[in-house]
């Protein structure tokens, strides 16, 4: 008996629909978010994460409304990310029923935003979302990852491990780490990246980006030292259910909530 490693289905929501892109292009429709969230709740998902990938303000209000509907029916933790730029955006999502918000590019523009948000709402609801890609190795041969924004198109030059440490020091209570190299490829998480960050920070780390089979979830926990594993398409398109994922992980000695 111990704290369970969490399995978190992720819903990328665009204009009120669940979608899933492969490296953020080639988007496929995966259904109505309220129905999808209810299904994962019934399957025993440990949390649900929403990433609002819509561009416009109006559509973001749609997302808040969806979160509100889900929060009246699904009684497990909900995290909402995407488009969180100001304190009022956080308040709107928390009021809609989110338990945590993911802050991504707004923190890069203004690192103190995470500090202000954690001071205002508490670290427990501030997740630093990091999109990282592997770049040329350090001079001493160690791998190096840097932060990318705009769906992986814009390079910031920021060292991902140092950034995670800094954001946790600023008050982030959790790290949602997405490998942009892996995202949508079904080739598995970037385990070296996940491990480097998980070992560097005291707070829980959620591995994301690249899950194609159940071994990838196991590897994320055992090799990547992640505290939670996030996946989208393997669940959305019926390849695997959450109970199948949990049973597979439990059989490999991982503590899960069955």
């Amino acid at each position, binding site marked *: *008996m*111990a*704290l*369970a*490693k*969490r399995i978190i289905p992720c819903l990328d929501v665009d204009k009120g629909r669940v979608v899933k892109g492969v490296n953020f292009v080639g988007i496929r429709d995966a259904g109505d978010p309220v129905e999808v969230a209810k299904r994962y*709740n019934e399957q*025993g998902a*440990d949390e649900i994460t929403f990433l609002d990938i819509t561009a416009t303000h109006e559509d973001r209000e749609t997302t808040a409304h969806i979160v*509100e509907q889900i*929060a*009246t*029916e699904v*009684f*497990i*933790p909900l995290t909402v990310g995407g488009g969180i730029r100001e304190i009022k955006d956080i308040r709107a999502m*928390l*009021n*809609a*029923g*989110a*338990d945590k918000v993911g802050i991504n590019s707004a923190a890069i523009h203004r690192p103190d935003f995470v500090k202000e948000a954690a001071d205002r*709402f*508490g*670290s*427990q*609801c501030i997740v630093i979302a990091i999109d990282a890609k592997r770049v040329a190795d350090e001079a001493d041969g160690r791998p190096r990852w840097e932060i990318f924004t705009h769906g992986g198109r814009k390079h910031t030059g920021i060292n991902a491990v140092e950034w995670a440490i800094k954001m946790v020091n600023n008050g982030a*209570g*959790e790290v949602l780490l997405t490998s942009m190299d892996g995202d949508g490829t079904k080739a598995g998480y970037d385990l070296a990246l996940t491990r480097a960050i998980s070992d560097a920070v*005291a*707070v*829980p780390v959620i591995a994301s980006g690249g899950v194609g089979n159940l071994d990838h979830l196991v590897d994320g926990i055992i090799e990547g030292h992640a*505290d*939670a594993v996030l996946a989208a398409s393997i669940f959305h398109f019926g390849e695997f259910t959450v109970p199948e994922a949990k049973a597979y992980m439990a059989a490999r000695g991982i503590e899960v*909530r069955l």
Partner: protein
Amino acid sequence: MSKSSVAVIDYGMGNLHSVASALEKVGDGVKVIVTDCPDTILSADRVIFPGVGAIRDCMAELKSRGLDEVIQEVAAQKPLLGICLGMQALLETSEENGGVECLDVLPGAVKFFGSDLRDAAGGRLKVPHMGWNNVIQTIEHPLWAGIPDASRFYFVHSYYVDAPEFVAGSCDYGVQVHAALACDNVFAVQFHPEKSGDMGLRLLSNFLNWDRPAAFFPVTD
């Protein structure tokens, strides 16, 4: 018979949407009132004291609204459920924010997990304690009705309760976390029943159906 009411204390510490929704889901018509009004709280049949965030802000918000005394009064009168920071605030003191005096409704202190927390095998444990952990029921209690021992509940906290008595449930996370306390008409939980799926909903339902314990009424013989 008119439906009973439950007041959810709103003092600016966190989102109460989930607590209210969960109560409405299991309440079978019970009136759910989210409020910071002392009179409304005092006249409700039952009271829930939730909360997330830091203890210093929590105590300051309570005092500025006159709710510290209201909660102490409720604790002496009717079913009260403290959740997460609401539980911690019911104790004597907390180590958070350099040391804060709390409401002293229940004996015990709130302590920091520390920066080098380890499990029994020496493995590093992350702080906050975030996620689903097993709660061992250390006493029988109406609020545990229908909930199997060692069921998992959802936790998120960096400070934990260490109480000398009235422990109703405990959880292992490097230290012995007193995950539930029960004393007369007061029950308090570190985890979030409103986020703990079916078992959490069952606990909330049990709270709404919890009669005041017989021992609470003095028996003259």
